[in-house]
């Protein structure tokens, strides 16, 4: 039985993974394990297929996304994910989050919301890209799990902020009509 998601999908356990290979292997596995391949098989085989496929899909989902992939790599190295009740220890990060949130709130009530939002959205995208780059470097330099987790936390925040940007964008569009 294969327990490690990287092994399951046949790729090397690194943060900078081979995306094409991940996609190709996932595709190959789906081709041979998908329950539809076993629609005429015994109940036990269907069960085994759906269980195996479910695990493969979950592994793919975790590895495809850089944030969950990074967390998973930390977990593999024996690091325990802190619970939700644990607050962010980095003051600068906290300050930045508050400032960005405030900025987004101000955009919503501004006169030229759409324009400001487009600029804001561009900034978030750029920050996300830079943070991903930094995370990759941190993994290469084998920095401590706590340091890496701080990068992950910031990425998570940026992702969440991006979804709020999209929601506001939709809201503005609806107001437009």
């Amino acid at each position, binding site marked *: *039985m*294969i327990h490690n998601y*990287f*092994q*399951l999908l*046949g*790729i*090397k356990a690194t943060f900078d993974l*081979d995306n094409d*290979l991940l996609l190709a*292997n*996932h*595709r*190959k*596995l*789906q*081709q*041979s*394990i*998908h*329950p*539809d*391949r076993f*629609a*005429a*098989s*015994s*109940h*036990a*085989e*269907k*069960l*085994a*297929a*759906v*269980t*195996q*496929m*479910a*695990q*493969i*899909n*979950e592994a*793919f*989902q975790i590895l495809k996304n850089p944030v969950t992939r990074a967390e998973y790599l930390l977990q593999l190295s024996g690091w325990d994910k802190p*619970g939700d*009740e644990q607050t962010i220890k980095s003051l600068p990060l906290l300050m930045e989050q508050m400032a960005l949130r405030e900025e987004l709130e101000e955009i919503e009530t501004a006169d030229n919301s759409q324009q400001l939002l487009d600029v804001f959205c561009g900034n978030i995208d750029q920050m996300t890209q830079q943070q991903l780059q930094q995370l990759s470097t941190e993994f290469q330099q084998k920095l401590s799990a706590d340091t890496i987790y701080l990068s992950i936390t910031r990425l998570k925040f940026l992702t969440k902020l991006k979804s709020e940007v*999209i929601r506001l964008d*939709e809201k503005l*569009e609806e107001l437009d*009509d």
Partner: protein
Amino acid sequence: MALMQIVEPGQTQAPHQRRIAVGIDLGTTNSLIAVMRSAVVDVLADDSGRKLFPSVVQYQSNNQVIVGEAARFSSALDPQNTIISVKRLMGKGFEDIHDFQSKFPYSFVSNQGVPAISTVSGDYSATEISAQILSYLKNIAENRLVDKIQGAVITVPAYFDDAQRQATKDAARLAGINVLRLLNEPTAAAVAYGLDSGEEGIHAIYDFGGGTFDISILRFTRGVFEVLSTGGDSSLGGDDMDQALSEWMISQLSIPVEKNPSLLRHVLNLARGAKESLSDLDEVNIHVCLQGESYGQLHLTREGLEQIIEPIVSKTLKSCKRALRDANLQGEPIRAIVMVGGSTRVPLVRQKVEAFFGIAPLVSIDPDQVVAVGAARQADLLIGNQPNSDLLLLDVCPLSLGIETMGGLVEKIIARNTSIPVAKAQEFTTFKNGQTAMLIHVVQGERELVKDCRSLAQFTLRGIPPMVAGAAKVKVIYQIDADGLLMVSAQELVSGVQAKVEVKPSYGLSDEQMISMIQASFSNAEEDLQQRTLCEQQVEAKRMLLAIEVALDKDGHLLPKNEFESLSQKVELLKQTTDSDDIQTIRKALEVVDKASQHFAALRMNQSVSQALIGQQVDRI
């Protein structure tokens, strides 16, 4: 990960020769049934040559049930007992149907939170009414085909949630149909075109039917359809155009439709007729006249109609925009747009879609039939008639599934657009000292607050041993099968106490309800239920025997000798019981073999996983 039971898999198929499986498009306005024979799909017709059967059911006072065209005819005369657009009610709770109540002249009663429509012959749920339509389709097919139907692929809108999918499956079971797979309608349409044209790349499926609008962005590569994103509106369709046009007519002519449901229905029918005519003609005259009484005449041009329906068409494009964004195509071009559903015959719809996507939509397959055609192809494949085909449909979970956490917040467990089937576990803990129970509330949607999402189910996990807050570890597992149906279970880990609960969607039917409904509504069916079940068990036993013998022959070496022998013995026992006429005996023998072969099946699946990735460099792993 533990092995888990995933809802109920499709049952019987005889293990030999060519098997008959049909594709069913169970639509809001019309339904179709199709079958694949000698590599060609036939959309099946009734004796009068009709292939498009109105999804209309009329209940009469003499307990007769009329379905299809005949029922549609009576809709103006007997609106309260003639149910149209029942698909909009599928899987809905009583509190969800206000919109439906104001639009249709039915009287609803609540049956334990499930809405039922009161008719002269009794109260019927949406599942039962849909079962009548499915049963009607099945009869038409069995009249046309010599063989018995062994399985069906039934299509559902991509936007259908768990309860709606479950209700559809329940309706099929009520009608005695073995569901091989529920298939998203847009995916079915892509199958119909994809196989014919073999065109690789990104496809947009624009499905504008009678009662629902769906947009799906699919990627098709070397035999694989992959759903990149889905979107739409489960209450937007051609009916809304009819509604808008009829409202215009009523206000123009001041037609007194209040308290006159027959007249209202008549005006709706006229509106639909005028809309359909204006797809070919530039102008029409509408004369409102019912039972000898005239309410006046109207002249309507195509431009006039387009003004009235423009807001409805624009709404669909907004969903398209969102779906494109979700698909995250990064510049990859859209190769084709498949048009599905009768509403895509409206010229304005085609114009607007072409203008939005910048390419001309595909309309070569009849937009009313394209879903049924794709479903029939997939049914033929799943029943095992095309063992060499590489085609595989990969679906995603269209909406995120989450759990309620403290403060009415949603913690997402399975993100939208995750490939299915999938199982995901997450751990939670207790909030208070000594807490012995935990409420598990399953919600669906993208928003962060529980009140903005749809509640799918809730249950309480009891028997947690008293501990300090935060010490208990409750593992919640969400799993979605290939049909998109969800099962949720929870268990407390620290104490080792196995407290496990499984939820069915809120409006799913229990086996007992199912049996009593079958007896109540299909009591005059020629086949005795017992007999039917026995036959199914015998076929199932034979099928299982064949499958397992082939497997043992090929991969028996994977098992340790003693396990191999023990399994072989049990298989031998099953062989001796297959012709027994006692259902319980067969069922028991089946269960024994099933249980005994689970480990073997898992070993075989592991072998398949390794083989699928063979030929790769070892150092890459």
